[in-house]
């Protein structure tokens, strides 16, 4: 009797069977890759801001200290965003008529706050505390990257839990002397391991991996 299928069907079926298996594997891998891309993590995406504030200019060129604007970073969980007032301390003197600063002046004039776009965001169930990290010798740039080179600020790290745990499991790889914490140009020494271990004992740094360290 007549064959209902063309002989090619055999090949097709074989290919499709093995193909399916491979395809599933690839898909799984793809998901993993996509999760690392900046599309999901926002890493290195410079976010548009109401005022094109340049850390490069203020920190890199003028050498402002981080704490001048992010004033509560040493006493509070939140590093703090500068009040318009803080901007106006200088900009009531210099660049007083610059067009790009109009939103700042407007804000100060009509007492309407500036709505900045958040660059480094954590989910609400994560309780991060700046002050303790700073106090234990974790530098700003360790997480926030080369701020002094950012014209428009971007996120340097994925802020995934996996990333947090890298440091919480082995702080010695990242610690720096307290004196260098706010140094935006700090380069880790060659013997970071040795330094890190010394600082860990000096600053009594523990490897905190309890869930409630961050989740409550």
């Amino acid at each position: 009797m007549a064959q209902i299928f063309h002989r090619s069907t055999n090949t097709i079926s074989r290919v499709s069977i093995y193909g399916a298996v491979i395809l599933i594997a690839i898909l799984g891998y793809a998901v993993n890759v996509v999760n690392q891309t900046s599309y999901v993590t926002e890493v290195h995406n410079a976010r548009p801001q109401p005022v094109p504030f340049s850390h490069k200019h203020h920190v890199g060129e003028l050498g402002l200290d981080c704490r001048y604007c992010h004033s509560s970073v040493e006493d509070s969980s939140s590093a703090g965003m500068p009040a318009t007032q803080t901007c106006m301390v200088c900009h009531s003197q210099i660049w007083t008529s610059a067009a790009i600063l109009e939103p700042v002046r407007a804000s100060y004039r009509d007492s309407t706050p500036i709505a900045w776009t958040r660059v480094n965001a954590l989910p609400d169930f994560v309780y991060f505390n700046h002050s303790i990290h700073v106090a234990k010798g974790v530098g700003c740039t360790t997480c926030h990257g080369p701020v002094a080179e950012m014209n428009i600020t971007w996120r340097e790290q994925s802020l995934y839990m996996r990333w947090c745990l890298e440091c919480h499991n082995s702080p010695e790889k990242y610690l720096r002397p307290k004196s260098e914490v706010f140094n935006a140009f700090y380069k880790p020494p060659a013997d970071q391991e040795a330094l890190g271990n010394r600082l860990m004992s000096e600053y009594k740094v523990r490897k905190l991996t309890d869930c409630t360290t961050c989740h409550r």
Partner: protein
Amino acid sequence: MADSPSDRLAEQMANVPILGPGYNYASVTDKISAIVLARRTPKWWIFGFLISFALVMLLMVSVTYLLVAGVGIWGIQIPIAWGFAIINFVWWIGIGHAGTLISAILLLLRQQWRTSINRFAEAMTLFAVSCAGIFPLIHMGRPWLGYWLFPYPDTMKMWPNFRSPLVWDAFAVSTYATVSLLFWFIGLIPDLATLRDRARNRAAKMIYGLLAMGWRGSAVHWERHETASLLLAGLATPLVLSVHTIVSFDFAFAIVPGWHATIFPPYFVAGAIYAGFAMVLTLSIPIRKLFRLEDFITMRHLDNMGKVLLATGLIVGYGYMMEAFSAFYSGNQYERFMILNRMTGPYAPMYWMLIACNIVTPQFLWFRKVRAKVGALFAIAMVVNVGMWLERFVIVVTSLHRDFLPSSWGIYYPTRWDIFTFVGTIGLFLFLVFLFIRYLPLISIFEMRTLVASEEEKKAAN
């Protein structure tokens, strides 16, 4: 002595063949494949199909509402945080076991009488497992995160808790589903080929053809087929024991009085096979009647299944007795209270119904007369199905509702959504069964052929 009626009955029973007289290869093939191909769809089929389909819709509605509103729509609460969902899960997964037992273990034991029932027993396994599989997922507070139970490299650097029985469950059940599916499908291939060749319209040819995966019945094919079936049988055999053992761990690992018992694994497995055979009987009796397959599924089959039912029933009964005994023997006030509470507490009716269904009723199967009566067998099988569900209800609910601190005791009532979901899965089960018996050969054609062969050899021998 040989003239006492019961002995005569015994003789007759022994002589009842596992295949009706006067069949040859062709007639067997015709009779079975005709069900699928030639015959017009019978009225009863359409009727039953529609009912089961309606129930599937009910399941859909219940599950959707569940996802929208949350598990609060069920009767569960603190302290009874597990209710119908887990009861039904254990019940369904148990039912599945008979299929695997018949197709795997009896195959390895070369039990010929399994031939005509293993196909739909396997199918039943598959369908039961798919019903069971729904519950662990939907009983979760956040089902959409169910995949966290499986280990995979995630952005959180987290792994599941390998100490938790629920994780073992996830593996056990998924393995079980996969193996059963493969086993069943491989068994189907030669018959699918037969259907392909016998089908008249092109669509049918195409479909069966695709499913037959180019089976040509060459010696090589048969040789590989045999090997594959044997291998899978070997794989499936330990599963029959392991799966329900692990399910029983869900309870045995907890410290709840009434759950924390070492006897659970064996008596869960026995219970599973018990429930399974009950379900096989419940299905095969109507089917053989409706499709007039009395010659293929003979009284001999029913008799054997009755015996298995009796045997496993006795094991289960032993389990209950040991539970009560160890509770009293333990001298532990919580254990003692637990068993007393089962017998006299607010859920005592459930407990005694369970005893009646699972221990008392099957005793009738001691009598050949009973085993020889189709109706009686069917009734007993039904009762056992109910009983096994009650067993899980008693284990889950009565153990939880009064545990250690009297201050946190409670009472559990199912809601309409509990019931809808349960009935819904029964619908899904029947729905699949109906599709199966209509569109696939519900008895293994090629294996029946081998039976014909062996029968002829017997004749030749005489």
